[in-house]
């Protein structure tokens, strides 16, 4: 290791300690041009450091989301009443969803972000990727392929921790970030998209790159607001103190920011922000923030709008939390839920028509199971509750799961089907849908996607693509299929707090 200049300053004794238990804590790997180094969605525990050569980093999953709709082939029914539903993949251009955020950049576990329209990038000597996978065991966020014959160091967490502590290496990584990634990272945030190169050059040496261990407080509610933070790696939990305990307001991942509310109001922190895992943030101090908002009134206006939106969402959640109800109501997560499918067990004959209907409306894959916890005479089924504390969002390696204004969970087009959100959901309410697509043979030439390879018409081999799906309430239909198909009037979709208001103190 000492032979690699970047790690020369690390004492030999420190390396010996790392290799005490395994001499394969770091391995040198050589790849020929075209060889896959790691695939998106795969679980791993290592990070890669590019020593020599170049690698392409890209998303091979189609940039599309799952949508259930009436099949074109079956749409000519009697007065349009007879409709057969199929679930397919559609892009944001084909299906602009309500409040759709057209992100221009997709966050990945690398020093660069990928463009939404052309999700391919290139890394070269000195670049480190796979840090989140290595530190927090998240799925790989992108596929990496050798663009030319190359040499990489693949390292376990203990080695990564050592090299990241080395001053010269840390300085190099930070310099790389400032030089190559800061601009796209800042511009990937809608509010900062209009910042000119000249101002980013001004910020480049001034921003601080900070690291936090899991559980560490980045800022505390009530502290003086002195900076804006942009999440670079990891997940940050935003919570507020209340008499009944902490209320989680949001989870932020790469490409999101916090701290602007206190700065704009010129006051104190309104929430506590804590690192959920290994977190790295970019800190812009108050003086630079003030210069930015003074020079760019457009940025200020956008930040103001966002701050007001966040304040309104916080008020809504705080009001909801103020009605602390029955213990069981809380235990079952109903306090959090916005919309649940209840089954009246005094009426239900356990015929599973609701489950069959859900499957029929979603390409044969049901998004609900007639199982779950009971509250009173109702079964709270395994179907998305649109929680106000959406744990499913923690760990998405590409930040493709988010909430609408209505708090409903939405899966963005760049979901890579790694199943992390499905595993995170405490209620098992996210399902993974397999789609048969034409074999994924995207061709990249000069870092540009030139073909999306839909060659299945000639009967060529097909591939399976996974996408996370959640209850969409059968949007586009007057009533969710599960409710419509229940012959016993037992299945109902309700807002639990309103529905059970009579039973709550």
């Amino acid at each position, binding site marked *: 290791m000492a032979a690699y200049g970047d790690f020369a300053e690390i004492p030999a004794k420190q390396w010996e300690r790392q290799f005490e238990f395994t001499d394969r804590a770091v391995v040198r790997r050589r790849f020929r041009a075209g060889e896959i180094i790691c695939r998106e969605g795969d679980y791993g525990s290592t990070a890669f450091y590019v020593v020599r050569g170049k690698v392409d980093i890209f998303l091979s999953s189609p940039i599309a989301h799952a949508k259930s709709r009436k099949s074109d082939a079956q749409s000519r029914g009697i007065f349009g009443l007879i409709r057969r539903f199929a679930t397919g993949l559609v892009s944001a251009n084909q299906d602009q969803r309500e409040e759709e955020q057209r992100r221009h950049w997709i966050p990945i576990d690398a020093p660069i972000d990928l463009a939404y329209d052309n999700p391919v990038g290139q890394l070269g000597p000195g670049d480190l990727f796979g840090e989140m996978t290595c530190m927090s065991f998240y799925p790989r966020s992108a596929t990496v392929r050798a663009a030319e014959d190359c040499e990489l160091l693949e390292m376990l967490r203990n080695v990564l921790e050592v090299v990241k502590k080395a001053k010269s290496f840390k300085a190099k990584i930070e310099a790389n970030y400032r030089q190559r990634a800061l601009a796209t990272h800042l511009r990937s945030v809608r509010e900062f998209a209009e910042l000119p190169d000249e101002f980013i050059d001004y910020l480049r040496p001034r921003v601080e790159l900070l690291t936090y261990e899991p559980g560490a407080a980045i800022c505390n509610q009530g502290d003086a607001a002195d900076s804006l933070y942009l999440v670079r790696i990891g997940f940050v939990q935003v919570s507020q103190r209340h008499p009944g305990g902490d209320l989680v307001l949001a989870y932020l991942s790469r490409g999101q920011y916090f701290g602007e509310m206190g700065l704009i109001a010129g006051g104190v922190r309104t929430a506590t922000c804590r690192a959920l895992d290994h977190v790295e943030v970019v800190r812009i101090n108050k003086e630079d923030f003030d210069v930015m908002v003074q020079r760019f009134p457009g940025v200020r206006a956008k930040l103001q709008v966002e701050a007001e939106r966040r304040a309104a969402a916080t008020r809504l959640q705080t009001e909801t939390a103020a009605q602390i109800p029955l213990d069981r109501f809380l235990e079952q997560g109903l306090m959090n839920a916005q919309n649940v499918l209840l089954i009246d067990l005094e009426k239900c004959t356990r015929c599973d028509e609701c489950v069959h209907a859900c499957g029929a409306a979603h390409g044969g894959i049901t998004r609900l199971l007639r199982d779950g916890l009971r509250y009173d*005479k109702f079964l709270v089924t395994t179907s998305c509750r649109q929680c106000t504390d959406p744990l499913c969002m923690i760990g998405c390696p590409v930040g493709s799961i988010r909430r609408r204004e209505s708090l409903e969970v939405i899966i963005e087009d760049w979901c890579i089907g790694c199943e992390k959100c499905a595993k995170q959901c405490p209620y098992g309410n996210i399902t993974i849908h397999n789609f048969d697509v034409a074999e994924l043979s995207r061709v990249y030439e000069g870092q540009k996607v030139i073909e999306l390879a839909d060659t299945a018409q000639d009967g060529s081999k097909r591939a399976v693509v996974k996408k996370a799906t959640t209850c969409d309430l059968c949007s586009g239909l007057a009533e969710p299929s599960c409710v419509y198909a229940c012959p*016993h009037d037992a299945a109902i979709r309700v807002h639990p707090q309103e529905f059970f208001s009579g039973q709550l103190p």
Partner: protein
Amino acid sequence: VIIDRSHWRWMIATLALTAIASISYAVYAARWPDGPGGGTIPGMIYGLLGSGLMLFAGLLSARKRVPTWRLGRAQTWLKGHIWLGILSVPLILFHSSFRWGGRLEQVLWWVFALIVLSGLFGLALQQFLPRLMLKLVSMETIYEQIPHVCLAIRGSADEVVAVVCGPLGVEEPSADAEEKGKKKTKASQPMEGSGPLKDFYVRQVRPFLDSNYSVTAPLASATHASAMFEQVRIMLPQPLHQPLDQLAVFCEERRQLALQSRLHGWLHGWLMIHIPLSCVLGVLGTAHAVLALWY
């Protein structure tokens, strides 16, 4: 489906239509020159109406096969199935002028009667069985999952006992169990005085926790089970009481799952008569109509 206020309109409409059909039949029976019969025009109209209603009732099954087609809410279809099905009874009676007819017609009568009775029986069960299941089976699971849940319970019980009694020495259909996610039991050194617990578990509890246990098993009765557990408790030292209590909980879970299976059987078993006979009625009814029109 629970017969509640939402059924009143259907009930009133059925009663009103039955009354109208009865009055019209009385008039027709009194005034028709050769007396009422299935071959007369009014008789054929009753037959057509009755058959139409039966056909509609039968379409519920087809409707369920296309749950996403917006052909009306399933509960409206079920209400129609129940009440129009009931309305078909007087219409068919008026069609036949209360006569048995030939052999084919007699078979038709029996089939029709069994369909109506099984349907009413199922409807009656639906009024209280779901409520009973809610009350008695707090550990209810998805019916099809019961064998898997039993296997999981038995796996957990094996683990509890093996920790205090050492290896159980029971044969496992291991490949199958592994496939179903059963964990490997971790055995340790047997605790002093654990012999009775192991013996009780291997002879009584473990077979009972199987997905196919004997219905005459003593543990199938909560009262017997309680007595048996008390007997074993006396023989065990204090530290082994907790694993014994855990086994009692597993047995209670198994009893609940068995009860769920039984109640589920009752709740859906009548369909085994109702649906096949409805198909038979369709075939025989068509034959009856063709023969009657031909001859």
